[in-house]
């Protein structure tokens, strides 16, 4: 790849740390990315407005994007609001995460059929679309890395995740603003996208600074009308992410967090939060790294054809830890403790990183606004 201007490109390192030249694509030219992606057989999933929120769904043109909209978020609260400009990606993160597409909420993982000679067992053909994810944020790239380890790095690989993930093209966007619920800077995951994407965009007033990090990304970029970004555009792009970073106000103190939590499994704060927690599972459902599921038998009326349906499940559900001898985590206290210690402590033992990327979804989408950063802070307070 030609690279006459390495000194400038170095300011926007790509996933390998190899300087790739950044380009500028005007908004009108960017509109053709949908055709380019569709032409390559991708189903494009991106942000769009639905049900009072910016959700991730299939998008077919620039018109589907939430142009001129933003979100206002707090503990237990999310509101759509008008922006005073026409930004396409001028929002933060919403109720959905990309795991909806990589790890479907419900799918058939196996089937059984009764034949004359007894039961036969199959795993169904799985033919998912080839996804292009448009508008992936830095914390979400981190969440994908976390789920990659869960589903693909162990001795057994999840076939559904593997297939969807391998085919997916990732177009990241550097955040231009942060919500009060964000704490990516504490988790070291954002707001700058540094790796794990094919293309990364930074939105300026009249277009995008775009860098490719992979050959797939380069190929797509080459089909858009673009020119090398100017030094001024690169400076503006850097300022955009800088501004977002400065807006992140929430903090989670991660110092020794694993040991602190494990040393405090009897802390009175667990009782306190259990008074407020509804054990409703919303936090785990919106969390982009939570991966729990259970399998249900769905049989036809004759009972001769049975499908094993895997569905998202959560450690907040009473039955989750059911054994014939009794339910292990039979109190909200023990279930909240499982969630928090799994995300922030045992995940480190299991997968070598935190299970939290600081996206703030669990804070915004908890119906009663329980905030894990506050809970951790309280647990860190010495008890008398």
């Amino acid at each position: 790849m030609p690279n006459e201007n390495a000194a400038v490109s170095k300011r926007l390192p790509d996933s390998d740390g190899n300087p790739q030249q950044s380009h500028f694509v005007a908004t009108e030219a960017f509109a053709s990315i949908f055709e380019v992606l569709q032409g390559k057989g991708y189903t494009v999933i991106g942000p769009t407005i639905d049900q009072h929120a910016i959700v991730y769904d299939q998008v077919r043109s620039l018109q589907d994007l939430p142009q001129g909209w933003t979100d206002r978020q707090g503990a237990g609260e999310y509101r759509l609001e008008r922006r005073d400009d026409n930004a396409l990606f001028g929002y933060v993160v919403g109720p959905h995460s990309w795991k909806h597409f990589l790890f479907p909420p419900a799918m058939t993982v196996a089937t059984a059929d009764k034949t004359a000679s007894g039961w036969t067992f199959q795993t169904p053909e799985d033919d998912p679309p080839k996804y292009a994810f448009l508008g992936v944020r830095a914390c979400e790239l981190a969440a994908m890395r976390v789920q990659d380890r869960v589903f693909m790095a162990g001795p057994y690989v999840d076939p559904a995740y593997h297939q969807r993930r391998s085919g997916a093209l990732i177009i990241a966007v550097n955040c231009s603003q942060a919500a009060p619920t964000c704490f990516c800077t504490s988790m070291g995951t954002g707001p700058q996208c540094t790796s794990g994407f094919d293309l990364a965009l930074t939105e300026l007033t009249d277009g995008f600074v775009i860098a490719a990090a992979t050959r797939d990304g380069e190929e797509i970029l080459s089909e858009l009308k673009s020119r090398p970004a100017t030094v001024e555009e690169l400076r503006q792009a850097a300022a955009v992410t800088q501004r977002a970073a400065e807006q992140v106000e929430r903090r989670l103190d991660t110092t020794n967090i694993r040991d602190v939590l494990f040393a405090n499994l009897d802390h009175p704060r667990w009782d306190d939060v259990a008074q407020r927690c509804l054990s409703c599972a919303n936090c785990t459902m919106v969390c982009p790294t939570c991966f729990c599921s259970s399998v249900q038998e769905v049989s036809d009326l004759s009972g001769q054809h049975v499908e094993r349906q895997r569905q998202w499940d959560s450690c907040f559900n009473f039955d989750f830890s059911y054994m014939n001898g009794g339910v292990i985590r039979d109190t909200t206290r023990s279930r909240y403790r499982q969630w928090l210690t799994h995300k922030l402590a045992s995940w480190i033992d299991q997968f070598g990183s935190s299970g939290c990327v600081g996206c703030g979804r669990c804070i915004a989408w908890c119906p009663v606004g329980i905030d894990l950063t506050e809970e951790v802070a309280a647990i860190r307070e010495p008890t008398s």
Partner: protein
Amino acid sequence: MSERPRLGVFKFASCDGCQLALLDAEDQLLQLAGAVRIAYFLEASSRIEPGPYDIALVEGSITTPADAERIQQIRRDAKFLVTIGACATAGGIQALRNWSDTDEFLRAVYARPEYISTLATSTAIADHVRVDFELRGCPINQQQLIEVLQSLLAGRRPRTPTHSICLDCKRRGTVCVMVAAGTPCLGPVTQAGCGAICPAYDRGCYGCYGPAVQANLASLTTHLIAKGEAREKVVYRLRGFNGYSPEFRAESDRLESIEEREG
């Protein structure tokens, strides 16, 4: 098994909702059958066979002295008794009268109230006899009913979900109406079963499937009140189809007593 299991369907005070779900499911029931013999189902056929019944499905709540007698006999006749719907499992919407003076109702509604024989309360079947399995909902979910019968016929204990409505909202991608629109919703304290329909139509959950296991009602009502809903409206919200279930009842009574204390 030489003889097919005998199924009885019994009705007490209720609307037609669950009955419709049952009748709608009849085709499937018959398919399930060859497997069952419908020995008692007044609404579907005039055939009345005496007990014992292997499975008794009981719909409706107990509101009259005669009902209270009849359910005892059904219990004696039934090997496995399943209550279906909010009326049978929690007293139903008619249990609202439990908070008021029935005599006054009678005088207001009927010209000759002395002809009406009724109890002061509408109560769940389980308040009168031992119940083997409760199928919740107002109305019940037909798929769940089939699953219950299929399980019982196969000699398994039926398994219906005990998790909150919220989980189903999230699985189907519904955006939370409480968080995104400030619409009060009973979903977090309500047991799943309907498939989270109301939030998908931009409404809060009405609690048709009754309290979820270990429902934390106090936290939700505190939150609703803090967000600006008047306490008496929260009481009203809780006193729906499952208003007389122990959990919902205790919470609405608690809120009401605060109200009275505070004048």
